[in-house]
């Protein structure tokens, strides 16, 4: 037996010597013992190995600290694996909302909502008074049509009012101009009601009184 062969068989020899089930046949055990008697180095190896084996067997088992188990279980991502349907749902929501939550898209959406809110405010829509029934497409369309109709009527009325005002203004202007024209023509003709020469204001008062008394009679 060579030293290399001895080294391989030594493990089984020590197992057999310590009562462990081994695959060492009796003739192999004899060969090992013969080699130990002949080779001092291998005998020393066997002695040291046996002593170390004996020492290790006396050593107590190491026990993990109780909190280690809790720590391991806490750190394992078990909850994600435990419910695959919930994990799949979460993934689907993330996939759906992922682009929406991108900063550029979110900002665009916010501006769009703000624009619509301003338009609604201008159009007179009161958001707090909205009911679910108001959001039906037919109701929305009817409301929109009504609002357009009203706006159109109001615009026509305004136009008519403005036209009436303009007509009145132009009529008044015409009357004024016509009046001024008549006045100027009247001023150009001799006045038949001019007083005769030599009439004083005192005589005029006496004559006027006489005329008044005669008319009264």
């Amino acid at each position, binding site marked *: 037996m060579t030293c290399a062969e001895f*080294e391989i068989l030594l493990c089984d020899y020590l197992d057999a010597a310590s009562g462990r089930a081994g695959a060492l046949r009796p003739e192999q055990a004899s060969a090992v*013992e013969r080699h130990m008697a002949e080779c001092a180095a291998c005998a020393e190896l066997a002695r040291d*190995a046996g002593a170390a*084996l004996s020492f290790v067997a*006396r050593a*107590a088992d190491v*026990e993990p600290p109780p909190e*280690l188990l809790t720590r391991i279980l806490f750190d394992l991502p078990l909850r994600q694996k435990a419910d695959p349907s919930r994990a799949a749902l979460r993934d689907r929501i993330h996939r759906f909302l992922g682009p929406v939550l991108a900063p550029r898209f979110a900002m665009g959406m916010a501006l769009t909502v703000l624009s619509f809110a301003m338009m609604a405010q201008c159009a007179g829509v009161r958001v707090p008074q909205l009911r679910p029934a108001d959001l039906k497409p037919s109701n929305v369309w009817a409301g929109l049509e009504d609002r357009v109709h009203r706006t159109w009527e109001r615009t026509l009325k305004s136009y008519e009012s403005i036209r009436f005002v303009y007509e009145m203004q132009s009529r008044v202007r015409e009357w004024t101009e016509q009046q001024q024209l008549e006045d100027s023509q009247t001023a150009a003709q001799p006045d038949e009601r001019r007083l005769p020469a030599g009439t004083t204001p005192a005589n005029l008062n006496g004559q006027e009184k006489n005329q008044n008394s005669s008319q009264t009679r």
Partner: protein
Amino acid sequence: MAGSLAVADSFQGSWAGAVAAGASAWRLKDRFVDPDSVVIERCMRGDESAWEELVRTHTRRVYGLCYRFAGRDSEAQDLTQEVFLRVFRTIGSFRAAEGAFSIWLARVTRNLLIDHYRRTRRDRATDSIEDQLPVLEEEHAAQPDRILAGRETSEILQAALQRLSPELREAVILRDLQELEYREIAQVLNIPEGTVKSRINRGRAELARVLRKQRVAI
């Protein structure tokens, strides 16, 4: 010959007890039925309670391997946690037809320990084992003939194991502390069975020399 048999007799009693205690979940009695197969199937289906059961069953073994190899409790805890996280992520790559789950788990643990060893090699060069446990060595040097209690023996063993090269250390731990079969160790380390036995013998002999150097009675 008589000397070697006397050595063998000295550890026979304690060894038998250790073997009886250690033949639980880690080592397979039946080579064709994996005791973890049902739990593994449930784990693969995403059963949370199965994961809890799996962790509860194997934490002690994984922690023991990490603690004996790394040498420190805090490191061993972190490594154990990392092992189970890796198992959680790679459980899909486990093939029941290729071997027992316990062997696969030991391989995962061993690979992670070797990665850790390579990563922290530079730190250990500046912080040697002699600097870590001077008190323990002095205490036992003063009482060389004292029969050490199991816990003290464990602590001395822990310090001595760190003096071994990683190849010899892992072989000794897997055989003498984790109690794996030679065939299983060969699967874990991915080396021939003969090489496994050679490393175990050299590791044990080196351990004995280290202990003797520390004047510990073995």
